[in-house]
């Protein structure tokens, strides 16, 4: 079975995010970028499927500027077999990404598509669901456990208040939650070998997808600054403050 994994290039999770001074977005110039952590979990799951003999080929897809090639290389170093870079400088919104993935799925015919449940930059949590709808495939979102059969997959999902286990027929779309696995470090020899793995470059127009944004961003603000806390000397002080100042009891 072929597995297609979507990997997004985002601002590294260790970076302290700064909003641009004109409030049009987040500062990304000279900022360390890396693979969306949920997508890393997706790649790891695909590599584990391959190691278990259940997947035969892993295709990693990324979209955006040329630098997204580095994100694909990371996936290749972790164990993906080849990459597809959809090269565009346009702002890509979830629907556009889902449409592009749909076209690629029609072409590649994977048995399973794995995406992160959301990207840590825009937190949209939409692409997997939209892709499933466009493909008319079943979806298993927020997966914390995957047992892949021949014609179906048993997936444990993290939902409010507990775990839900479902079965979906293949092909299907899966989105990863944090506890699905702990991604490996790509080994240094594999990073060297990843250089030799193939990456195809295509552009949205050649796939027949109109990626023009459907939503416009009006304003991006930093969260309000929190006020400094105070230390209280006694429990009585604390209770008094909770009553009179915080007014929570």
């Amino acid at each position: 079975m072929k597995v297609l994994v979507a990997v997004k290039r985002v601002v590294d999770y260790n970076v302290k995010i700064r909003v641009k001074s004109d409030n049009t977005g987040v500062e990304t110039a000279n900022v360390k970028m890396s693979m969306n952590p949920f997508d890393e979990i997706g790649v790891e799951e695909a590599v584990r499927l391959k190691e278990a003999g259940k997947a035969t080929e892993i295709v990693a897809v990324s979209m955006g500027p040329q630098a997204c090639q580095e994100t694909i290389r990371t996936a290749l170093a972790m164990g993906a077999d080849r990459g597809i870079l959809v090269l565009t400088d346009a702002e890509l919104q979830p629907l556009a990404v889902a449409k592009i993935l749909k076209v690629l799925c029609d072409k590649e015919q994977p048995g399973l598509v794995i995406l992160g449940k959301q990207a840590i930059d825009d937190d949209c949590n939409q692409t997997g669901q939209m892709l499933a709808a466009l493909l008319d495939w079943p979806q298993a979102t927020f997966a914390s456990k995957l047992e892949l059969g021949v014609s179906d997959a048993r997936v444990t999902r993290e939902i409010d208040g507990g775990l839900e286990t479902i079965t979906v027929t293949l092909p299907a779309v899966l989105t990863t939650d944090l506890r699905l696995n702990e991604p490996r470090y790509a080994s240094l020899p594999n990073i060297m070998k990843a250089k030799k793995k193939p990456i195809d470059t295509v552009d949205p127009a050649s796939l027949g997808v109109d990626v023009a944004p459907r939503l416009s961003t009006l304003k991006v603000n930093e969260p309000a600054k929190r006020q400094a806390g105070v230390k209280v000397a006694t429990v009585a002080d604390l209770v008094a403050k909770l009553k009179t100042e915080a007014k929570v009891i």
Partner: protein
Amino acid sequence: MIRDQETLDSLAETVARFVAERLVPNEAKIADDDRVPDDIVAEMRALGLFGLSIPEEYGGLGLTMEEEVRIAFELGQTSPAFRSLIGTNNGIGSQGIVMDGTPEQKRRYLPRLAKGEIVGSFALTEPEAGSDAASLRTTARREGDHYVLNGTKRFITNAPQAGVFTVMARTNPADKGPGGISAFLVDAGLSGLSIGKPDKKMGQKGAHTADVVFDQCKVPASALIGGVEGQGFKTAMKVLDRGRLHISAVCVGVAQRLIREMVTYASNRVQFGKPIAQFQLVQAMMADSQAECYGARCMVEETARRRDRGLPITVEVACSKMMASEMVGRVADRAVQVFGGAGYIADYGIERFYRDVRLFRLYEGTTQIQQLVIARGLLDAAKG
């Protein structure tokens, strides 16, 4: 020589991330336990850290020197004990074979060293012979198709873990100088080879050194590196040139870490109503540290590029080792100073680095030996 910037950046970033996420949180533990836990050793092996400098055809990464020092800058950003574990396989414990070994010796040892299946160790220093390597007393006597080794080696890094030793021994008793010395590959576990108990050291807990004792230890003639007697001293000096440059890079890495710790602490520690980082006397300590560290880094990178171009580097390496190791000594001292009383308290980890870095000015040639090497180079050049 950097062959492919993108791949190298990716290698360095992966090592940096591994250091930050897996090694830094375990620094205090390995110092307390005086050992690196097996799961971390296994992770270092899986990552490929043991084979950085071993050629690709033998399963290593085959990094150029410029690439290797870039990785060493990253590995230096944590307790030196972690680096020490992989240090000998990438440096003095494997390079004798890489540089001068026979094809058979390379096939036999390098793939296992690259994977970290065995640890290589370098046995040159003796109780009576340190920097004066030419006065070695360990002997190797030829008997038929064997050599018989006798003597004691001291402070041998990774000896308790080693699977193979590169041993310098005198094969020609008539030649009292360097020309009488040969290098041998001696497998651990041979009869007549014993390891002393690990030395109790000032710092770098978790990295072990010990005596290695040869008592009528019989090794096959095929264990002679390169198959030629009398080449051992030359091999050792070439190996040390490379090793010293790697150590210099590690010094830069540790200094960068300590500067970061200083800046963070000074930015948060409030005295007289403001962070101490705003006081110029504290700023001077941080600025001096950064300038010296940057200077050493530039020297290390330039010397690495010289080596990759095939130019002689003995003097440049001695300059780099002296500057980098003395620099990190001063930086660690200032780090203690910036931390104030906290710098003296074990919980903050700064005093541990202060003790750890002291070794850099001693091993693989003391600062005074580096000075002699530099001066000799100058005087030889003046003679023409």
